[in-house]
């Protein structure tokens, strides 16, 4: 599954990252997998949220079948 990255993560890691996600997972598992691959950005990832199909997720179970797009949302800073 290709996961979209933005802001500092996109610049340092790339616009997407390929992850191997189980059939059912939580947003924290997405962040954990990226942390394992890129421990240097654990601090940013600890402050980030996960969006599925352009909606923020919390701690609910996510079914891979329902996912069209996953994105990591670092702390926003518009305005």
């Amino acid at each position, binding site marked *: 599954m290709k996961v979209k990255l933005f802001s500092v993560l996109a610049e340092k890691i790339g616009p997407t990252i390929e992850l191997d996600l189980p059939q059912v997972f939580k947003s924290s598992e997405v962040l954990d997998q990226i942390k394992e691959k890129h421990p240097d950005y654990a601090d940013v990832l600890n402050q980030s949220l996960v969006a599925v199909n352009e909606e923020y997720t919390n701690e609910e179970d996510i079914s891979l079948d329902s996912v069209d797009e996953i994105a990591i949302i670092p*702390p*926003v*800073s518009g*305005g």
Partner: protein
Amino acid sequence: MSLIKIVDEPIDTEVLTKSLIHNEFGGVDIFIGNIRQYTDDIETEKIEYSTYKAMAEKEMQKLADTVLAKGMDVVMVHRVGELQLGDIAVFIGVAAPHRAEAFENCQMLIDSLKKTVPIWKKEYDKDKIRWGGLE
């Protein structure tokens, strides 16, 4: 009527302001955010804004919908790309029957935008680059 979008070109405040003038609304409150040179001792040279556009416009629309549902008119436009000092980054306008609700909802929209809308700034300061939002 309402206009919610992310753009990569300069924001025309005059056109947006005019779009908020309707006979049924007696008050229009507008917030304009522009690129500030100094934040305490830190001198900013320019800011690059990036976004997750599809989601950002959805989140902006959700915020606007709460105000539109109360019968007011809303404009929310955020610019992305490279912005120089003085450039306008964001325009929020609320038209309402009376000023109090225009003030209140305009403030709510900009405060909420800063918390939930996936837009990021990369601030080129004189001493170093800073990524907005990070602790």
